[in-house]
């Protein structure tokens, strides 16, 4: 009977989790090339398939020191619990690796980029669908032997390279492979194309992160521009904030005041403080939320605001920065606008606007004349002047139809809040927050108002219940869950079945 004595050699095993287009293949190729140039046997494999098209995909590499001509039998797929290095090119992919059992405390060096590449459902949510990544970070530190977690995407981008390069740098720094930094860098050089940028990103990934320095914040609360009288009036408004309102609400109120003088003028900011004060008188606990929501409600998004924002110097600078415009390069900016009759009438004096809306003939005419997609070249004088003129209407904003309607909406909403504030502060707070439903332009805005009406419409059934606030919050979340409002239908149906409750 033959007797077999087994060798104790084991390969170094690496799993790379990436998304299609992230260069996970490049990283795997680098590792293989490096191992081979160092005289090791390397085997890499992958299961890209359709996942190459932006999906989650995994690359697997095994390395073993050569033993004469003996051919090692290497695995074509990671063995859960038996992976030395896991490299994740995105935070949630790191989570996926952990879920697959590839990361274990006795063995695994986890190298993860902490940046998020959001999935479509996260992005498409009508409100805030972004998943909290902290559980993944916790799991990482629990499951791995050692963790290197940094925003490798940012490091790579800063060097004008791909994340694969900064991850390769982190791999070198981790010491998980028995190869020198020189070997890593030589491999990149021999790889050719984009060598310089890749090396820069590699170095960034290799370096141990400097302790994050706080971003230098610009002095807040300073007043720029304006005539002495204007400045004096603004200072008095700010004094009012400090004298009349609870301390926790003051930062938000200052933001509100700043927003509304930027949006309209000092009088408007004064009205804003009056509105908030009225609610605070009834229920001090509402101060902060009222400060936020009322500011947003008063700074409604209209054509004038859009034109104003799009014609500012600061905005021109930001566009140039984002387009990475260099010396000797020109930048041409085109705006995609689609004003509809409703918006046009809303931007006319209230009476005139209503009259036009009332007359089908006029409506048809104006629709034919104005309601069409407009591409305005804001970087060219002609286009800029159009927007500049619209922005100039700001002076008369208060006389326009849109303002009249916004003012009505504001009044009704605040009355509703005020009516509940004394007996059910929690419910009043939720009512304030319902303003979040009303946002966007044209259809989106209308849909939002519709949802607002339906949610607040449930008030008669809820008012007086101990859990009224709770129910209103649920209705609001449901309204924000999907565009069509299916979730809201369900929630309202449930509310309808509530019998006089606790």
């Amino acid at each position, binding site marked *: 009977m033959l*007797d*077999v004595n*087994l*060798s104790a050699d084991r*390969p170094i095993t690496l799993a790379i989790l990436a998304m299609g287009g992230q260069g996970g293949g490049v990283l795997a*190729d680098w590792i293989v090339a490096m191992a081979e140039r160092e005289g090791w046997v390397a085997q890499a*494999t992958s299961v*890209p*398939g359709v996942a190459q*098209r*932006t999906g989650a995909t995994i690359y697997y590499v095994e390395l*073993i020191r050569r033993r004469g001509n003996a*051919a090692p039998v*290497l*695995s*074509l*797929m990671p*063995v859960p*619990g038996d992976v030395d290095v896991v490299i994740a090119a995105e935070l*949630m992919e790191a989570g996926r690796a952990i*879920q697959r*059992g590839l990361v274990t405390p006795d063995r695994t060096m986890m190298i993860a980029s902490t940046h998020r590449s959001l*999935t*479509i459902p996260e*992005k*498409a949510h*009508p409100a805030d669908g*972004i998943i909290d990544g902290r*559980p993944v970070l*916790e799991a990482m530190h629990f499951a791995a032997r050692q963790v290197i977690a940094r925003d490798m995407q940012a490091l790579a*981008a800063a060097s004008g390279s791909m994340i694969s390069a900064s991850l390769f740098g982190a791999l070198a720094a981790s010491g998980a492979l028995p190869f020198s930094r020189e070997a890593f860098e030589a491999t990149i050089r021999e790889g050719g194309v984009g060598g310089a940028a890749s090396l820069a990103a590699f170095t960034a990934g290799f370096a141990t992160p400097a302790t994050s320095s706080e971003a230098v914040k610009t002095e*807040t*609360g300073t007043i720029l521009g*304006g005539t002495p009288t204007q*400045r004096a009036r*603004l200072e008095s408004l700010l004094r009012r904030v400090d004298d009349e309102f609870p301390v926790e609400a003051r930062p938000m109120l200052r933001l509100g005041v*700043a927003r509304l*003088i*930027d949006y309209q003028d000092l009088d408007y900011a004064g009205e804003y403080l009056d509105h908030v004060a009225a609610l605070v008188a009834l229920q001090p606990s509402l101060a902060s939320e009222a400060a936020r929501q009322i500011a*947003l409600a008063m700074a409604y*998004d209209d054509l004038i605001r859009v034109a104003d*924002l*799009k014609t500012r110097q600061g905005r021109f600078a930001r*566009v140039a920065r984002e*387009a990475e*415009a260099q010396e000797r*390069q020109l930048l*041409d900016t*085109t705006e*995609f*606008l*689609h004003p509809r009759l409703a918006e046009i009438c809303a931007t006319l004096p209230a009476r005139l606007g209503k009259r036009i809306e009332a007359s089908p003939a006029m409506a048809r005419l104006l629709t034919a004349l104005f309601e069409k*997609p407009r591409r305005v070249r804001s*970087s060219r004088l002609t286009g*800029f002047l159009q927007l500049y003129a619209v922005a100039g209407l700001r002076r008369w904003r208060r006389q326009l139809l849109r303002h009249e309607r916004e003012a009505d909406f504001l009044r009704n909403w605040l009355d509703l809040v005020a009516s509940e504030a004394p007996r059910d502060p929690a419910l009043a707070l939720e009512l304030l927050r319902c303003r979040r439903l009303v946002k*966007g*332009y044209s259809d*989106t805005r209308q849909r*939002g108002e519709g949802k607002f009406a339906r949610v607040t419409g449930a008030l008669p059934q809820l008012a007086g219940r101990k859990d009224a606030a709770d129910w209103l919050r649920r209705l609001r979340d449901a309204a924000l869950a999907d*565009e069509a409002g299916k979730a809201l239908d369900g929630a309202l149906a449930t509310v309808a079945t509530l019998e006089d409750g606790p």
Partner: protein
Amino acid sequence: MAERSFAREVQDLRLGDGEEFRGEGILAVTKALLQSGVGYVGGYQGAPISHLMDVLADAQDILAGLGVHFETSASEAAAASMLAASVMYPIRGAVTWKSTAGTNVASDALSNLASGGVTGGALIVIGEDYGEGSSIMQERTHAFAMKSQIWLLDPRPNLPSIVQAVEEGFALSEASNTPVMLELRIRACHVHGSFIAKANRKPAMALAEALENPVRDTGRIVLPPASFMHEKEKIEKRLPAARRFIVERGLNETFPGDLDEIGIVLQGGLYNGVVRALQGLGLADVWGNTRVPLHVLNVTYPLVPEALVAFCAGRKGVLVVEEGQPEFIEQALATELRRADVPTPLYGKALLPMAGEYTAGVLSPAIRTFVETVAPALGRALRTAPSPAAVLADDRIKNLARTVPARPPSFCTGCPERPIFSAMTLVQKELGQHHIGADIGCHLFAINPPFEIGATTMGYGLGPSSTAALQVKAAKRPIAVMGDGGFWHNGLLNGIGNAVFNKHDGVVVVVDNYYSAATGGQDLLSSRADNKTRSTRHPIEAAIRGVGGKWVRTLQRTYDVATMRDTLREALTTTAQGTKFIVASSECMLNRQRRERPAFAAAVKRGERRVRPRFGVDEDVCTGDHACIRLSGCPSLSVKRSADPLREDPVATIDQSCVGCGNCGEVAEAAVLCPSFYRADLVHNPSRFEVWWAGTQARIIRWLQMRRERRHMVLTT
């Protein structure tokens, strides 16, 4: 021109005797074909064998030098039919495709080929698209091999074994006058390894020689009485011949071990996984030494009963490791043991899962149970294999299920197919939800968020016929989607012709992105590129009209969402009789960028004027409703936390990967979304006058801006 260029890999095809080939499994197969003196190669691209086709397409001069004829077949059926050249002539031929999808399409030709048998070696390289990374229905090619009697090779997944399988495959085919399938799993196709090459060989007989000296034999043609003779011949001559060859050449391998009361019979393709599992239990090492005797079936059909019975006889138990279902090998082995009256207990699907991929995580516990059951003493001595069980049991990990989102594939940045489905979404908002038959191709990603469009998919080019039963009078018309790939593969006849002939009233949208994009951007009849070796530029609209299509609209810019929407609306509402065809054409952005990026950079370098468009979002104008994303889903269009402390919802943002396709703006316009989007055209190397004129305007604009901003007071926050 394929998505990936194989200019470097092509050089590996020239390697001579004793030189080392390093690379991907499927490329090793390509080299092995040339070493084997193959006379002609054909196939249909598709993961995981696309690279075989792509590298040969880039290696036409080498093939010409060897006198090898290479075709990009219109479909797997066309590829399989090519093997007819090996029926009468001693010429080796090889074809390749993704299986079982492609084998289904090829079955007609394969059955005929297998019935008459072959003279020259006929090899079918199968990419077994099973398990993780697969994009098709989960089935086994094994069933096709058995029903048509085609031999099936499943070599150990390392390059030397794979290359040997190609060479022996041809020989086996010739020795038994039977076509041979070489099955490679996904990871084996993509595995990076090395082997020692041999010099390429010219075909034993030139194709031209065959053409000039035709040979025929009625006995080889599938028609009674010959067809009945063929079946007899399969059993009486070809099968025994094959088994003799397999034994003589030792195609199946037995690895001895000291624990001879047990043994494992396995498919060659699973060898590495089994050895790794044994390693974890302390029964094997990384150099392939094993204590458990292994019988490795590099040929999984036909089996050689004598060899199997001999391996099993006298053991306390044998484990059969066979991936997928039904368990043909285990059933056959059980029968043979019974016939030979060998009582050895057989374990297989009893311990291993009937369905699903045999990952190391699956194999290890099964092998442990096998050993513990058959040889308890030995079982107690087993090492505990590495396991994540403890980690996975922890709540912190369990709860990740609630955090980590799925990430299905989707349309690439700037994909021209996205606006088609944006428009479809807009139309359905107007006219209500419709029944939409989907097809195979990138456009199938529309079934995922944000579009969630597409009811069924019945196969490549079968989108339109999948709506055939619903072509009845109703308030709504059925819609069918089909790509250009599917159109030329099968769709022109089974989709378009079928719809015209049966007077379908529905709408057919043909997504034309200039390539067979999902499989890697190979050229098609309707591709716009000039291809030296293929005839391209045949318009899809002409083909539709050619088979009788009357209502045909071709859109040359799918990014024009408004026109796309209006055309769809018209097609769904017109009183016109017959099928409404919409050909939506725009080039696949992946391929377009691969072509244009370098050209753009070069031109800019030469100092020529070039404009690069990119899109952006004014975050202070965006109100965070994300309707734009629900109509797009572009990877470069995402959301970020607003810098404005007053706003609660994240705002839209466009990252550096934007290619300026324009879909965002078009959608914002067509759906009247919001004014946040802008296009920033960056002009490289502008003319002197341009610079001056732009500067002048900029100065005036800045003066106006300062004039207004001076008047307005700012409170910094």
